[in-house]
């Protein structure tokens, strides 16, 4: 079943007289429970795509259908209510937290805004979410800036799943983490996806990460989606120049080839 479908999405930036086409004629879809990886070099338009999907900026043209609704026609209060269905994990996790907030306040915000549980049960719900992402409930009282990178990422994930969304957009969500922490976060994400039946739009410049989590891949180059297909097909035989360049860059970083992939156990085992 199609959860999200994007048709001919387009977005330009006008900066100092220059026109930059950040997303051009992008078309793709994501099925329920599926992870679509979006790979692309820096500046290929991946973050712009994320911001368009999350309604953080309007597109110049195109259509987004999410959970059967015309997503772009939603406004104001209706949009805010529906936002609980699509959440996001940002790359600069700390920058995406209120600077002086505690962990509990950060996770409590979506619970409070969408009243996912009655007020008296909020503390318990925050504790449940913390444990869900592998943190002790004692974390609730700590300021977010005191946490380590991996802990912050877990809090960001807890906040994103607090409203039980059907789609989570992850923009370079593990790129700032070192390899061990990154692998544990990827395992957590794959596990959460199985249990909650969420879809992921997983954005990364790193094919090694995408190979571990994505069922399908889309390759972006200069704002266009130049190639889509099953992850293994694209990695083995990229059709586009941009795809070949990304694969070559990944292989170069992993001289041992396949066996350096430390997260095989979380590799998707089912096809969509």
């Amino acid at each position: 079943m199609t959860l999200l479908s994007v048709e001919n999405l387009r977005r330009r930036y006008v900066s100092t007289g220059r026109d930059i086409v950040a997303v051009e004629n992008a078309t793709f879809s994501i099925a329920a429970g599926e992870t679509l990886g979006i790979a692309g070099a820096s500046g290929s338009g991946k973050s712009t795509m994320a911001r368009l999907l999350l309604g953080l900026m309007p597109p110049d043209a195109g259509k987004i259908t999410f959970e059967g609704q015309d997503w772009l026609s939603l406004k104001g209060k209706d949009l805010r209510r529906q936002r609980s269905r699509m959440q996001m994990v940002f790359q600069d996790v700390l920058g995406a937290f209120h600077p002086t907030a505690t962990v509990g306040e950060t996770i409590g915000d979506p619970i409070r805004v969408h009243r996912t549980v009655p007020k008296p049960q909020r503390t318990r719900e925050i504790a449940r979410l913390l444990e869900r992402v592998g943190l002790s409930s004692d974390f609730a009282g700590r300021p977010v800036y005191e946490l380590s990178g991996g802990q912050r990422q877990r809090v960001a994930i807890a906040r994103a799943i607090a409203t039980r969304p059907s789609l989570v957009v992850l923009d370079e969500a593990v790129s700032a983490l070192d390899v061990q922490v990154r692998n544990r976060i990827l395992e957590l994400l794959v596990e959460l996806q199985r249990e909650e039946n969420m879809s992921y739009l997983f954005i990364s410049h790193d094919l090694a990460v995408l190979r571990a989590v994505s069922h399908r891949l889309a390759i972006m180059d200069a704002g266009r989606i130049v190639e889509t297909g099953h992850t293994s097909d694209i990695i083995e035989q990229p059709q586009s120049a941009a795809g070949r360049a990304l694969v070559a860059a990944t292989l170069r970083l992993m001289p041992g080839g396949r066996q350096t992939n430390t997260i095989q156990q979380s590799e998707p085992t089912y096809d969509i």
Partner: protein
Amino acid sequence: MKLIQKFIKTPEGIVGIIILSILITLALSAPIIAPGDPLRIAGRALAAPFSDPSLPLGTDRLGRDVLSGIIHGARTSLLVGAAAALAAIAIGLMIGLVAGFCGGIVDEVLMRVVDAFQIVPGFLLALAFVSVMGASLPVVVMAIALGAWADPARLTRAQVLSLRERDYVAAARVIGMPPVEIAVKHILPQAVPPVLAVSATIVAAAILTEAALSFLGLGDPNSVTWGSMISEGRNVLRSSPWLSIMPGLALIVTVLGVYLFSEGLTKAMTRPASTDRSAPRDGMTP
């Protein structure tokens, strides 16, 4: 708090806070250390300073106690300065927040109003306002605030515009938080500190403006002010210069204290924190 610790380490901050503490103590305890109406006649006219132990700073043309006038004048100066600056900053914060957050036509209109107020010199504005409304403390406070709110408004708007683009505001929108809550809880608290850093300069300017208005006879006629004391001393400037010099010194010390305080505050706020709270910000997006 870290900020207070860092503030106390700056020499400017220390000196500033000492001067201001003394002034505020003087102003608050004026009825005790200089009891009675400072405008009443206390002795013979034009007594020189240090000649009579009961009138340490002498008397003016009408025989009023100069020391008592200066102490009570500190009340007016500090009260008017602080109240006017508070009003100016409150108005500026409100207007700047609304302009920056709403954007579009609301922003355009508000910023043109800000422009208009910035073009007219604040002192002229205050002068005109008091001449029309008549001199009384609240009018003087409003008059000074009227000429001083534009700067904090512009500063607040710039802060809001930059904060709006931050990821944590985007994250709050993604959560579905209502715009008013985002403005009040996520943007306002972060936009305020830089505006507060310049607030001391606004206080200093307000104190000077009040003195200037009083000097021109446009202050509240029922309270002693340093400006009116300087103005009256002017008539006997040759024979009794201290009558103008004393309140003038008080004014200089006050403005200096406020200025040093603000310097210390700015230094404490811009000095890097001992513990690093900042993560790598955007711009290193691969």
